[in-house]
C-alpha cells in the first residue's frame, strides 16, 4: 500500500497556490522570484508523481522535471540580474515601487 497519486497532486496544488499567492502579494522582488520557483517546484512534483503513478508511467516525467528545473534556474538568474540592474538605477527592490509606467 503506497501513498496515492492524489496525495501528491494535492500537495503540489497546495505548493502551487502558496507560491502563486506569495508571488502576487510579497513586496520584496527576491521573494516574488522565489515564490515563482515554488510554483515551478509544484509542477515538478506533479511531473515526478505522474512519472510514477500516471498513465504509462516511466522515466519521461522525471526527465521533463529536469528540464523544468534547468529552465527555472535560468529564469531566476535572469530575473535577479534584471533586478540588480533595476536596483542600480532605482535603489529599490520593492516591487510596488516599480510603477512609473501605468494606464
Amino acid at each position, binding site marked *: 500500500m503506497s501513498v496515492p497519486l492524489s496525495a501528491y497532486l494535492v500537495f503540489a496544488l497546495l505548493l502551487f497556490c502558496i507560491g*502563486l499567492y506569495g*508571488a*502576487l*502579494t510579497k513586496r520584496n522582488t527576491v521573494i*516574488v522570484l522565489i515564490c515563482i520557483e515554488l510554483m515551478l517546484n509544484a509542477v515538478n512534483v506533479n511531473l515526478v508523481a505522474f512519472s510514477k503513478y500516471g498513465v504509462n508511467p516511466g522515466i519521461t516525467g522525471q526527465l521533463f522535471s529536469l528540464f523544468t528545473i534547468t529552465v527555472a534556474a535560468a529564469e531566476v538568474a535572469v530575473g535577479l540580474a534584471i533586478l540588480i540592474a533595476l536596483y542600480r538605477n532605482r535603489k529599490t527592490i520593492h*516591487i*510596488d515601487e*516599480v*510603477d*512609473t*509606467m*501605468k*494606464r
Partner: protein
Amino acid sequence: MMENAWLIPLFPFVSFVVLLVVGKQLKERSAYVGMLLTFISLIYALGVLYERWTAPTYKQAYTWLTIGNVQLTVGFEVNALNALMLVVVSLVSFLVHTYAKGYMHGDERFPVFYAYLGLFTFAMLGLVISPNLLQTYMFWELVGLGSFLLIGFYFYKEEAKAAAKKAFIMTRIGDVGLLIGMILLFLEVGSFEYEAIFAALQNGNISTTIITLSAILIFVGAVGKSGQFPLHTWLPDAMEGPTPVSALIHAATMVAAGVYLVATLFPLYEASETAMMTVAYVGGFTAIFAASIGLVQTDIKRVLAYSTVSQLGYMMLALGSAGYVAGIFHLMTHAFFKALLFLAAGSVIHAVHTQNIEQMGGLWKKMKWTAPLFLIGTLAISGFPLFSGFFSKDEILLAAWTHGHVGLFIVAVIAAFFTAFYMFRLFFLVFAGEARTNVHDVHESPMVMVLPMIVLGVLAVVSGYVQTPWGAFLGEWLTEGTNWHAHAEGPSWIMIVATIVSLCGIALAWLIYGKQAIARDWLSSRFPMTYNVLMNKYYVDEFYGLTVMRATAFISLLFEYIDRFLVEGIARSLAAATRGIGRIGSRLQNGQVQMYGTVTIVALAILVVIFAVTGGYL
C-alpha cells in the same frame, strides 16, 4: 388656332425669360416686351374663343411620365369654360401690364416686376388650359409662386416678406388637400384626366366615399387659393404687393382659380351632395364673414381684399348651389369690376401716397377719370341694377333659392347688403367730402394707367349683358352638351329684393358717410365689442398664432430636445460607456505588476469556476 392654344401661355413665359436675362439692360423698356407678348396672348385667346364658339372641345395630350404601366400625360384642352377664362385672364393681364407701366414707373426693379408678371400670367394661362388634374396642380402651384414673388416684391419691407410667406404657406396648406384629393382620385380612377374621371363618375366606378372625400379635399385646395374661410387670412395681407398685382392676381385671376377648379370638376361635386353642401356653406359663410370685416376696415386695399374674399365666397356659394353658370358668370364680371376697383384704388394711392381712407376724401374733383371709374366699379359690385354685378349676383341668388338653401339665400342677401354698404362707405370716404390728405398736389394718373381702367370700366358695365334674365346667352354656351341649367329659373321677386338690398346699402352708406346724417361712430360706440371683433378680423390671425403656430413651435421645441438630449444623449452615453470601459481597464493598469498577475489569476479562477459550475462538476 385651337391646335396651337398652348402658345397662349408661352408668350408670357417668353416675356419672363427674356426679361430675366436682359431685363437689366432694357430698364423700363421691359414694359413693352411684357405688354407686347401679353397682347399677342390676348389676341390669340380671342381667336381661340372665337373659334371655340362653333367648334367642339379640342384636346391634345403627350406622354410625360411613365409609372409602371401608367402613362401620365400633359397637354391642353380648349373648352367653353377655359376659352372664356383665357380671354379674361389674358385681357386683365394685358391691362395690368399696361397700367403698371405707369404705376411702377421709377421703381428700381421695374424689369423684375414685369418678369414676374410674365411668369404669373404664364402659370395662370397654363392652369386654365390644363386638361388634367396633375397639370392643373402643377400650374396651380406655379401660380402660387408668381403670387408669392409679387407679394414679396418689396422684399425689404418686413410686412411684404411676412405677407408673401403667409400667402405661400396658407395656400400650400390648401394645396396639400388638393394633392391628397387628386391622388385619391387617381388611385381610384387610374388617371388624372378630367375626361377619364368624369367617365368613371358616370359609370359609377368610384365609391361614394372617395368621391366625397376627394371632392372635399380638392375643395380645400380651392379654399386656400380662393381665400375662403378658414384659409382666407393671407389674402388681405397680400395687399402688401404692388397694387397692379393685387388687381391681377388677388382680384381677377388667381384667387378665382379655386372657383375655376371647382367649376371644372363640377361633375365630381354634383355626384356628392355632402361635397356640394360643404362648398355652398363654406362659400356662404365666407361671403358674409368677409363682408362683415370689410365694413370697418380703413385701408383701401384691405377693404377691397375683404370684398374679394366675400365675392369669392359668393361664387362658391353659387357653385355649391348647383349654380354652375352663376358661379362662372360672377367670376367673370367680378374679374372685371374688381380689377377696375383695384386699378382705380391704385390710381388713388398713386396720387395720395397712402392707403388709409381716413386720410383721403374729396378726390372726386381732382381725379376726373379715376373717380367715375371707381364709381362704376362700386356700382357694379354693389349690384346696382343694370351693372354687370347686378346680373351675376342675381343669378347667384336665384341659384341659391332654387337649390333650396333658404338659409344661404338669406346669408347671400345680407352679404349683398353689406357689400353695397362698405363699398359705398369706401367711395364716399375717398371721393366725397373734405380732403383729409396731406398731399396737396393730388393729380390724375397718366393716361397709360387710365386707359386700362376705362376698358375695364366699360366691361364692368357691359359684361353683365351676356347673361340676363332675358337671355342666358353665356349659360347656354357654357352648358352646351351637359344637363346643367343654363339659367336658374326662380321667382322674379328675388331680383327686386336684391335691388332693394343693394339700394339700402348704398343709402345707408350715403347717410353715414355722404350726408353724415348718422354718426360715423355709431357702431363703434354702440357695440364696441362687435366693432373690435370686426376691426380685428374676428381674431382669426391671433387664433392661429395661439394654436397652430404655438403647436408648431412646441413640436419643434420638443423635437429639438429629443434630438439634442435623447438622440445625442444616447449616442454620447454609448461613447461614454466605451470610454468608461477603457477607464476601468486603465485603472486596473496601475503599474503594479502584481496587480497584473492578480487580474490574470482572478480571470483564471472565474473561468474555471464557471466551467466547473456549468459543467456540473460542482
